[in-house]
C-alpha cells in the first residue's frame, strides 16, 4: 500500500484516495486544435518505466485533487516531482 502525501492531510493510506489517471498533455483549445491534436489529447498518455505524473483524489479525506510523481517500477513517490515536458 502506498503512503500518499495529501497537500493538506500529509501522509495517509492509499485506501483513502481514488486514483484519477495519468497526467497527459494539456487540453488544447478545441476551436483551434486539429483533429490529430484532439485525438492525441484524448488517447495518449505517457507510459514510462519510471516516474510518471498522476492525479489522486483524497475522496475519503479532505476531498482535495492533486498531482504526485510516482515511479511505475519501484512505486516510490518522488518528493521533488520531475520537470514536466
Amino acid at each position: 500500500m502506498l503512503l500518499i502525501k495529501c497537500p493538506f492531510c500529509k501522509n495517509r493510506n492509499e485506501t483513502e484516495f481514488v486514483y484519477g489517471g495519468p497526467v497527459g498533455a494539456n487540453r488544447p483549445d478545441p476551436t483551434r486544435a486539429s483533429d490529430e491534436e484532439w485525438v492525441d489529447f484524448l488517447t495518449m498518455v505517457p507510459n514510462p518505466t519510471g516516474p510518471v505524473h498522476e492525479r489522486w483524489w483524497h475522496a475519503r479525506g479532505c476531498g482535495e485533487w492533486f498531482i504526485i510523481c510516482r515511479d511505475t517500477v519501484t512505486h516510490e513517490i518522488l518528493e521533488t516531482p520531475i520537470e514536466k515536458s
Partner: protein
Amino acid sequence: MSLTLLFRLSSKEIYMQKYSLFSLARNALTGHKNWQKAWRSPPLRDEYEIIIIGAGGHGLATAYYLAKEFGITNVAVLERGWLGGGNVARNTVTVRSNYLRDQSIPFYVKSVNLYEGLTKDLNFNMMHSKRTMVDVVLNYPKMRDLRRRQLTMDIYGSTYKQITVDQVRKIIPALTGGGPESRLPIIGGMVHKDAGVNRHDAVAWGYARAADALGVEMHQQTAVTSLLRANNGGIKGVETVKGTVKAKKVIVAVSGHTTSLTETVGLRLPLRTMNLTAFVSEPIKPIVDVIVNCSDLGFYFSQSDKGELVIGGAPDSGQSFRRDIKQHIFEDTVGAMLELFPAFKKLKLLRQWGGHLDIAPDASPIMDETSVSGLYVTAGWWGGYKAIPAGGLTMAHHVATNSPHSLMQAFSYNRFKNLDYILETGTTTAR
C-alpha cells in the same frame, strides 16, 4: 547416422517426437532419460525473414501459425527472460467468449474453438476443461447490461442465459452468502456454457515445440533493447543484448512493454501498463465445478485440477510495471469472495503473484502494422490469454499476406484516429 538425424536431413520439417501413451511407456523403460528436447537452442543468426519479440502466448502462437498456415519458417522468437515466463504463465486461464461488441465476439468465439482443438493440433495435452462460467449478479442495471450482451452474443454463436437465484445456488452449492439479509443480495446469474480453463504452461510449451518442429527458432535470454529503422523509415531489425539482428518484418508481442520498445523508433501508442494479480488457496476436495465471476463485488475464481482455488480480482489502479501484489488489493478481493463464500474463510492461501499488461483506452487489443512499415504490434492484451489462438492465427495472416484477417480487422491502430472505440471496459477486469 541415427535414424532421427536422417529424418531431419531428408525432410524440410524437423523431427518432432510424438507424445503418446506408447512414447510414455517406451521412455519409462529407459528411466525418462531419452526424451527429446521440446525445442532446440540454435545460435542466433544475424538475419531472419521475420523477428517476433516476446515468447509469450501471442508471440509463440503467431510463430506457429506463420509456419503452419503460411509456410514461413525463417523466423526467430526473441525472449528477454525464459519462454513462457510472462503473463502467459501468470494468468488465471479463463477462456470465454462473452464479450460485448460485434467486432469482438466472433474473434473470441474463434479463439475458444481453436483452444478446444489445440491438444490434437499441437500433440500436447492442454488439459482443456470446458466448464460453465456463472456471472453472479447483485444489481439490476448490471443484469440489464448482461442481457443486452446476450442479445449480441446470440447473433455470433456464443451463448449466454439468464438464471434465477435458486438456479445459481443449485449450480454453486458452496455459495451460501448473498442472501436476503445481506447488504447486496444476489438477484440472479448469467450462464456462459462455452467457457473453460486449461494449462497455461502447455499453451506456451505446446506452441513453442510445434513451431520449433516446423523450423522456427526460439532464443531465450535475448532481450531486445531497441528497434532499428532503415533510411526509408521502415523497420530493418532489432538491437539485442546479443547484437544486431536484421529482418524486414518485426512483430512486437511483449505484453506490457510495448511502448518501451515502440518509443525507440519514435512511435507512440495509446497504451498504458497496469498490474493485475492472482492468488491460490491450498488444495481442497472438488467443491466448485464452474468458473464463478462476480464483478459487482470484484472477484472471480475457478478450482484447478489440483484442487486449488485460483482467485483474481481488480487491477491496481495506477500505472505499474510490477509483478507483485498490493496488500489492500489482496484483502479487498478476499473480502469480496467471503461475502458470497463465507466458508472459504478457513482456507489457507498459498501463493500470490501479478503481471503487468498494457491496455488501450477502449480495453480492446491493437493488432496491426504500425506507421513504421514492416513493424507490427499485437498489444493491449488485457484478458488476452483466451485470445492466444485466434490472436496468433490472425496476426500471422496479417503479416504473411499484408492484409488484415477479417476477424481482427477492427482491432486496427487507426481506429483511434476516428475515435472508433470498441469499448470492452467492464467485460474483463479492466475498468
